[in-house]
């Protein structure tokens, strides 16, 4: 199966004072439909930059970002906007939606209306998605009045309502309590099972529960732990085989 998303040799540098800092170095990643991947890393390790480049919001200095066979790091703003309305959906500003509709229902319906759907149809589909993410109780509330955990569900509903192929979310569950976080992660897992490729970040291992692939940024390189073990096959503190992802892309044995 060919990858839905491929980052190929992505490198990003920033100027910090007189220094130039390499945030991402020769990063490669293949994501297929149904993959649920989490990049687990601390502050300042480049995970937000990685997501912004993946979404096409930032261009890498070197390398390419291929989505469905197209290099999205070089497409026009118009094409990128169209992709972001439907196929690639992002929750990059944590659980706080960037654009507020007046109510949760109107807010979740926004991307559908922006894509040309009528108000009635948009709100019907939005209501169904709100129900699915467990936000029915506050469908008529103002988005600005919601708690963090409620906003996370609403942001997820808004991101998923157009039926994206790729969902990108930055530290979406980091401010949630254990039960809320677990519930949102279970929702993400259910979208992945339906074929949505999901790439999220987390600052804490609890934010990676349920993901099928686990990665981290290590000194600007992306590394991945394999998750091929079956239950009980080895003790959980046995590390098993591990592969530096920047050296060996998924399924490969090197360059």
């Amino acid at each position, binding site marked *: 199966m060919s990858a839905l998303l491929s980052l190929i040799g992505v490198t990003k540098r920033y100027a910090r004072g007189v220094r130039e800092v390499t945030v991402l170095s020769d990063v490669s990643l293949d994501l297929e439909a149904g993959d649920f991947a989490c990049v687990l890393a601390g502050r300042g390790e480049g995970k937000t930059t990685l997501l912004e480049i993946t979404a096409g919001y930032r261009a890498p200095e070197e390398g390419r970002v291929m989505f469905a066979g197209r290099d999205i790091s070089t497409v026009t703003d118009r094409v990128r906007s169209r992709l972001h309305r439907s196929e690639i959906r992002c929750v990059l500003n944590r659980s706080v939606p960037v654009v507020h509709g007046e109510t949760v229902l109107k807010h979740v319906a926004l991307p559908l209306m922006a894509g040309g759907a009528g108000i009635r149809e948009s709100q019907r589909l939005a209501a169904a998605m709100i129900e699915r993410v467990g936000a029915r109780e506050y469908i008529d509330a103002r988005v600005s009045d919601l708690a963090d955990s409620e906003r996370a569900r609403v942001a997820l509903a808004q991101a998923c309502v157009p039926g994206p192929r790729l969902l990108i979310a930055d530290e979406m569950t980091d401010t949630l309590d254990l039960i809320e976080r677990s519930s949102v992660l279970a929702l993400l897992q259910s979208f992945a099972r339906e074929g949505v490729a999901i790439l999220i970040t987390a600052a804490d291992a609890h934010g990676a*529960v349920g993901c099928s692939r686990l990665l981290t940024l290590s000194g600007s390189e992306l590394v991945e732990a394999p998750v091929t073990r079956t239950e*009980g096959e080895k003790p*959980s503190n046995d590390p098993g085989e591990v592969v530096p992802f920047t050296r060996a892309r998924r399924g490969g044995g090197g360059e």
Partner: protein
Amino acid sequence: MPVKHAVMGLIVERPGYGYDLHNRLSHRLGPRLAVPEATVHSSIKSLRGSGHIEVVRRSFRGEQAAIWYGATEGGRDWYADWLDEPVVREPVRREVYLKFAMIDATRVPRLLEQFRRLELECLAAIAAHTRARPLADELSDPVTLQMAARLLNESGALDHLNADLMFVKRTLGVLRWAEAEGSVPRDKLLEAVS
């Protein structure tokens, strides 16, 4: 983890055979802390050898024989003693801290290599835990005491692994600076330990 004691506890609750005991232990521990079936079998062998359990019956399904074990009086006492023993907190002073404390400039490249390996090991161990399905939608209300224990144990294990990973990542950051510059800028160190 003293698996042998947990297997003994299951047999004290009611007799069981190898496969059954492994299933019951997996249910109590959850998939993230589950132990291999072979470990349960070796625990049974050891418990039998020390006289803590005995064969109480044999059952057959087709040609498959299951040997059922029950607890002996001595085994019950031994298990009760273990439960009453105070739990000892594992020391924070671990080998990795001692190695890091003994660092000098000549050892930076070797230590970097070791910490890179540790980082991957931590990540792989976390992946083994996080791969399991989130539990929130499986919880009844109120939660049974056994399920509460399982959730707390899994959460504690993940906290532990996460702390290990973050320590290793911070240390790697400092070692990389030491390798590139020969020293560590104060702001980088404070960023790492804050």
